[in-house]
């Protein structure tokens, strides 16, 4: 798993490249939280277009970051998930709390 973050004012765009499972979840969470350490980052967009696999361990990581961002009054957006990832996000109810842009 590789993360590429770009800062755009009060927003952070992070592209996830690779597979998000329990094995890669710790590193993913730590790197995302490092990007969010600066409290002036309000909004987080996760670009999932290069995420080739995700299971429920990834749902835990996303919901955890949602809580953090929501706690500081920002929004979490998910961008361009592949069909397999999109299916998992849909069935686990993530789109009830997190906005999706792009298909």
């Amino acid at each position, binding site marked *: 798993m590789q993360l590429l973050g770009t800062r755009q004012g009060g927003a952070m765009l992070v592209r996830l490249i690779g*597979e998000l*499972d*329990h*094995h890669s*979840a710790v590193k993913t*969470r730590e790197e995302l939280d490092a990007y969010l350490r600066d409290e002036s980052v309000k909004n987080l967009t996760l670009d999932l277009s290069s995420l080739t*696999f995700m*299971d*429920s*361990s990834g*749902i*835990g*990581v996303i*919901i*955890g970051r949602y809580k953090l961002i929501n706690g500081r009054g920002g929004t979490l957006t998910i961008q361009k998930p592949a*069909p*397999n990832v999109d*299916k*998992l996000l849909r*069935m*686990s109810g993530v789109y009830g709390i997190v906005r999706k842009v792009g298909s």
Partner: protein
Amino acid sequence: MDNEMVIRFKSVSQNEGFARVVVGAFAAQINPTLEELSDIKMAVSEAVTNSIIHGYGNAPGGVVEIRARLSGKDLYLEISDEGKGIADIAKAREPFYTSCPEMDRSGMGFTVMETFMDTMEVQSGLGQGTTVRMTKRVAAEQSLDAQC
């Protein structure tokens, strides 16, 4: 297509990806669609991860075993560990239930296995390890094997 395989591996998280690839390659013999193949990999990932984190408490000394069988259009999967086992299976299977919320677990593993496979059953008991059995029938007609 009739075929069978067994793999056993150590309870280390590197093997989550390994197990997905092995079972995916095996299941490819019954020509699943891309969606069916990713459903199967997802279910394998969930069961193996559970054995590693919950069964063996993230300790590397355990062994996870996967038995897979193909028969016609059907895949039969059995994923087992000899870890601590589950006291209350009905509760464990509830959506969003996790015994480790502090670890950012979503509690959706069993729900994913149930949703993405055709059938799923759990055999477990405290101190008795856990076995998860799942089946999936692929939609496509199997391709005819070459005659020679």
